[in-house]
């Protein structure tokens, strides 16, 4: 049983590679934000729809903006947006899941049925529906990810807490007279934190898929903001004349999602190796 996460994943070549890839992507995007080494994501004036050349390593879009800095900005938006949404969903979902599993009874019934209800909608359809109801934009993308992630978080955390809540040390805390707040914070939460972190990693990657899908349909991140998905939206009209506008962001998006998934796998194996 580990007392923490040991990086880099011991003997896990794939997870290690994924972590480095992800770190590199994040580092590049931060560089893109803080320096102008890669160019400016908003500067107009370059030759429109030109192929990769000197000065424009990944070509330009229809407004003459260099694609590379836009992709780097897109990485940032994609990761940050999804992570932020999942973080909120994780906090709310964990609290509900832990309370449901510890208190049982009617609280458990209500929370479980609520989660089932949310869970019964196909995720992407639900996300599109939410974005269409709210005004298209970043907040609706975030809301969509939260609503889709919440039921999974509740279920996972509830299941993990059920396994912990019946253990003797929780009973001992009750005998000692500990209040529910202390039991939740000191005894239950630390012992399900591993499950939360692992699920969060997977949810972030799924969140990125959702956001990209919504943005691709034009319902998510709006111009001038750019996420990898909205870059796909922008570039789709020019697929036949400037294919790099679609392939480059698409490729980076795929790598990002894959890396987060592999990092999630690595975390799961480190934190819960029993299932191997």
């Amino acid at each position, binding site marked *: 049983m580990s007392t923490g996460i040991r990086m880099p994943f011991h003997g896990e070549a794939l997870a290690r590679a994924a972590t480095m890839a992800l770190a590199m992507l994040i580092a590049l995007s931060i560089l893109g934000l803080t320096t102008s080494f890669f160019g400016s994501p908003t500067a107009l004036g370059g030759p429109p729809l030109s192929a990769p050349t000197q000065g424009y390593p990944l070509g330009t879009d229809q407004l003459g903006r260099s694609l590379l800095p836009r992709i780097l900005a897109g990485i940032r938006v994609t990761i940050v947006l999804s992570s932020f949404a999942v973080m909120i969903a994780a906090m709310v979902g964990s609290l509900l899941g832990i309370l449901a599993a510890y208190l049982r009874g009617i609280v458990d019934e209500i929370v479980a049925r609520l989660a089932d209800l949310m869970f019964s909608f196909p995720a992407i359809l639900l996300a599109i529906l939410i974005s269409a109801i709210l005004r298209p934009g970043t907040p609706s993308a975030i809301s969509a990810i939260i609503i889709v992630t919440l039921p999974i978080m509740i279920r996972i955390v509830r299941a993990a807490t059920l396994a912990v809540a019946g253990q003797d*040390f929780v009973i001992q805390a009750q005998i000692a007279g500990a209040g529910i707040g202390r039991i939740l914070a000191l005894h239950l939460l630390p012992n399900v934190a591993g499950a939360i972190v692992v699920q969060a990693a997977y949810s972030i990657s799924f969140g990125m898929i959702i956001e990209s899908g919504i943005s691709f349909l034009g319902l998510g991140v709006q111009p001038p903001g750019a996420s990898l998905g909205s870059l796909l939206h922008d570039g789709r009209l020019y697929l036949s004349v400037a294919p790099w506008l679609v392939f480059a962001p698409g490729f980076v998006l795929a790598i990002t999602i894959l890396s987060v998934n592999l990092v999630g796998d690595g975390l799961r194996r480190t934190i819960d190796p029993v299932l191997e």
Partner: protein
Amino acid sequence: MTTPAVINLDNVTKRYFGGPPWRRRTVTAVDAIDVAIGEGETLALVGESGSGKTTIGRLCLGLLQPTAGRVLLEGHPFSAWRGKLRGRLAAVLQHPQSSLNPRLRIGTSVAEPLVVGGSRARDEVSRKVIEMLDAVGLAAGIERRYPHELSGGQRQRVAIARALITAPRLIVFDEAVSALDVSVQAQVLNLIKDLQQQVGFSAIFITHDLAAARYVGSTFAVLRGGAVVESGPAARLYEASSHPYTRGLQEASGLIDPAIVRV
């Protein structure tokens, strides 16, 4: 009864109700039991699964409410004590591997009853923790370790230290040595006996193991189907009982087998 009992179960019944409303099932776990435990006494509660012994333990800890009857501490029903019960009752439970929060250091776990009970002075609490760990025979420095670094026997000693730290009136030992190796059981049982002489708490020792019951108990009660079938001084278990059920248990454990040499 000359001295007032520390713990009293006064005609206590505990029933569980289950099943859908049109097919209610009732399980009577404890049936109109009268039990009294005096000062410094260890009651060995012996029974098989389903006998009600664990339920009695939980009732004495206030974790369960009786369906009928009252549970009394020093003559007052539990309901009258309200919040002040905490600290006067403690428990050592069966599973060494789940009795301590794996995320907390030993010292933190042992200190918990004090901290929850309102003790704020950090130094005072630390001092008491080290004193308790020493009293149960654990080496200095163990308060900084984590549970997974300790053996089963060591974890049970930690559990005993935690149980003692608020100087409780009653400690409930629920199958406290059942999960331990044969040669370690005697260690922990000796520790319980010695500590009781030094510190003077009353105890309920719940077990299915007659050998442990007669070794550590001053009085005993055999439970079957929620009722007491035989009770008396624990030393009596060293001879063949006149009650058929008790005798059956003695024979099954080899405790009255003439072929075995008593050392």
